[in-house]
């Protein structure tokens, strides 16, 4: 292939029809409280990891909803599993377990189990 010396930008638009919903399906089956989130951001505000890094647990949940597996994978490893987010959530979303299940799903995707 000819090397033109530049690359094309990846489009920023989320093309919902073609994204990968495997993590989402796995989560809906294993942590139903995921559905109750209203994206208020309380979890992000209190998050131990988020206060020192660019980790955003609220946003991660939207990445999961939209099926953005690359973003999910890079985000999910940043959580320290302290559980503070669960304490503040007004909708009882078990964020800590969401992280555990996401990691599980990602492992399964890697080993072609999902």
């Amino acid at each position, binding site marked *: 292939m000819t090397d033109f010396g530049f690359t094309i930008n990846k489009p920023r638009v989320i093309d919902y029809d073609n994204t990968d919903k495997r993590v989402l399906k796995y989560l809906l089956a294993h942590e139903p409280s995921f559905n109750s*989130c209203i994206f208020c951001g309380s979890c992000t505000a209190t998050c131990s990891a988020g206060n020192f890094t660019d980790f955003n647990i*609220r*946003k991660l949940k*939207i990445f999961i909803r939209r099926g953005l597996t690359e973003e999910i994978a890079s985000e999910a490893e940043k959580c320290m599993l302290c559980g503070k987010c669960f304490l503040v959530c007004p909708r009882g979303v078990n964020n800590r377990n969401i992280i555990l299940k996401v990691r599980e799903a990602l492992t399964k995707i890697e080993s072609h189990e999902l």
Partner: protein
Amino acid sequence: MNKKVVVIGGGITGMEASVQLSALGYSVTILEKESQLGGHLKDWTVLFPNLRKGTEIVSFLEHGLELQEVNVIFNSKINEIKKINKHYEIIVEGRKTLVADAILVATGFDLFDAHRKEEFGYGIYENVITSYDLEKIFAKEGEIRTPSGIKPKRIGFIHCVGSRDEKVNNHYCSNVCCVTGVKQAMELKTLIPDAEIFNFYMDMRMFDTHFEELYLESQKKYGINFIRGRLSEANETIDKRIVIKVEDTLTSRPLKMTVDMMVLLVGMEPSKGTKEIANLLNLKMRESGFLKPEDDHTMSNVSNMPGVFFAGTCSGPMSIKYTFTDARAAVTKINCFLKEYELQNRILVN
């Protein structure tokens, strides 16, 4: 002789107020422009927040009217209203002139005409419908089909169509379309359990008792998805599906999604009848065209014309519950007026 009240409009407000005014001993006439009572209520099969049937409310109101002697004039067109001393003369086309000691304006709302948001494709793409059209589909019962005749697998609801939008000159929020969107999403999901449903919103305004609970239930039990982003434009695919383009504001990225059917949650506008009556009676209107009370806090239902009162959605968007409350509140004010108790100064005039 009993004092006479003429109620203009036979929707929820007009019906409920007439029942109560008649029970208080006034002689009541309803002027209805259509050939039946009930207004928009007839068009909605089940109601939020408890999914009860709309017809139950209609029966409640009709039963009330049966118990009272309320005179109803159907298919009526008002040509002129004259103030003569302390009463009004209402000239109805082809009928005897009516005399009223007090008038209740209950002329209600019109639904926003979705054709005006051309970029949303209503009337252009066949699978773009309104919340009103969806109610008609629900009323038919049987399997849900899109206008193209397929069983929809993915449906998008668009909030705030014709409300909160400078481009159509409606700056206000229509109050009830958020909860209607949630209600209709749940109904659709019940009828098509494997469908994916997305509500595209700017703010979720679940202001009343049980609305927030309904919203939670729609997520928890029905798996309805909520995406914060306002529709910019819609396109049609070759197989007549609809492509929705929004900003997914909570990831700060543009998002596009193809749906089998797109439902526009149309808002309320002051009805044509409201504007006509306001002109005939010189009533004050807000910039939005809804009727304006003498004081927003203390004089709701009281117009700038002595003896003329108004209630219900001719004064702004409201739910059925508040329409009832407002109708009854107006009855109290009319009763005070006819007993010559002055509301502003809180004194009996005679």
